[in-house]
């Protein structure tokens, strides 16, 4: 039997790397697609912009469907799609596909919420100046929603750290998987404690950085 230290030395660096890949890919997907979907959800529901009930409803249902499926199930459900996209179903990149789906849907809702929090009066004043939509989005909506968007990103990153632990089921690896494989299945309590401690530190760190950024952008 290897000592806890040996296991950690052998497995931890690659586990951290795998976690980083999974979170990096899904977060990137969220920041692009989640932001876009969240923006469309907001714009199509706000009477100030383009109220489009049907578009909003269809998109809302799609997002909700993804969010209703338990992540473990989504992981398995999306295997054919994963195969199609990345041509493999094993490894952190493959695990990133279902992770990205879940986090895009999750992030989109948070983004919609962050935009909805923006003071309607400020947007109205911007519209009254005669500014075009692009300018209003860039210089008013995003600026005013920035602290909310940063907080949404923080919450998403932390959720991703949790979700990525389940990615072990499809051979995704990562820190959470290390905890399950060694700490749980092989009764390596030392590994379990070390990895959980590491996760706590990472989550705290993410929260701290997120809060700090949100504060910098809050000018109230």
């Amino acid at each position, binding site marked *: 039997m290897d000592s806890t230290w040996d296991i950690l030395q052998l497995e931890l660096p690659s586990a951290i790397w795998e976690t980083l890949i999974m979170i990096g890919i899904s977060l990137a997907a969220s920041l692009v697609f989640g932001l876009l979907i969240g923006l469309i959800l907001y714009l199509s529901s706000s009477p100030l912009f383009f109220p489009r009930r049907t578009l909003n409803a269809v998109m809302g249902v799609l997002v909700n469907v993804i969010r209703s499926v338990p992540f473990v199930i989504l992981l398995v459900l999306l295997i054919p799609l994963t195969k199609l996209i990345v041509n493999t179903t094993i490894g952190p990149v493959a695990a990133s596909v279902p992770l990205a789906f879940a986090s895009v849907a999750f992030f989109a809702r948070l983004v919609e919420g962050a935009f909805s929090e923006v003071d309607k009066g*400020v947007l109205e004043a911007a519209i009254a100046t*005669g500014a075009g939509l692009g300018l209003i989005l860039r*210089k008013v909506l995003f600026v005013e929603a920035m602290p909310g968007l940063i907080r949404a990103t923080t919450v998403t990153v932390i959720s991703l750290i949790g979700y990525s632990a389940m990615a072990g089921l499809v051979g995704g690896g990562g820190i959470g998987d290390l905890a399950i494989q060694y700490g749980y299945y092989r009764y390596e309590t030392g590994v379990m404690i070390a990895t959980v401690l590491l996760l706590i530190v990472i989550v705290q760190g993410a929260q701290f950085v997120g809060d700090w950024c949100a504060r910098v952008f809050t*000018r109230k």
Partner: protein
Amino acid sequence: MVIVLDKVNVIFKQKGRKMHAVKEASITVGKGEIFGIVGPSGAGKSTLVRVINLLQPPASGQVMVGGQDITRFKGAALRNVRLKIGMIFQHFNLISGATVYNNIAFALKANNYPKEKIRARVLELLKQVNLSDKAQVYPANLSGGQKQRVAIARALANDPEILLCDEATSALDLENTEEIIRILRRINRDNPITIVFITHEMDVARKLFDRIAVMAEGEIVEVGDTYQIFTEPQHPLTQSLVSRVLNIEVPEHLELKGQEEMLKITYTGERAYEPLISKVSKEFDVLVDILHGKIEYIQGKPLGILLIKLSGEAAEIARARDYISGQVFKIERISAAKEGGELNG
């Protein structure tokens, strides 16, 4: 620019319920005029002013700005009209995440103002509202009055011909309200910009407006010259609004005896200064008691109100009353209020 609203109706549909916010409202605001719309909250004033730049499209009726029917304007055409209509709000509505400088620059960018000239223009606008030292400050670090001045600078950035003010002083204290009134008056004097100002504060109305429209329950019930509105209010609502500025209280526990009569005298214009009271007590055999009195200035013109008590022979009182009637703008007989309450109109 002349603004004409013709039979404007605004209807809100909320949860299957229809709310008729503005009913058949028609107003014409002349070029360079400071036009006020007053009325109690919920009267539809804000809704009506938002129709002018189509922040609130009307259900029916016509909106004419500078001779152009803009009622159906959309997209770029509407944005071009809005560039010429500045607007300020009760809660200032500045971009909280942008500096004072960037808040003003935003309006210039909306107008595709040449990039290299933006800086100079923003600084010039800041100077106009006396905030040159606040360019890099965020709105949260400004007082209410300063925020409204930034909002005014933003609204004036593109040299609009119309300025809409939606309860622009209602969130401010007296001192800042005065300051904003001064700035608006100066702007209106320096370049004849048409101002439409919504407020429920009659004190602002008497200091700032050239003409006033009174709104109640979505309808415009009275329109007139400010002095005329204050001196000869027709509609009961106007009378009650005006009386709040010109209110005079009958002293408590005042009881009139048989040979006494209480009169409320309103005098206007130059006559406000005439020594009417001493004349009356000299020429008639009556005693004149002044119970209460004040002079308000409306657009710089005095409007005096005096509550007097005449005592003496009934016939002599009548003669004195007749004489006073000929000298003053309005005279009313007042009965002693039971609880010493307020007198209206």
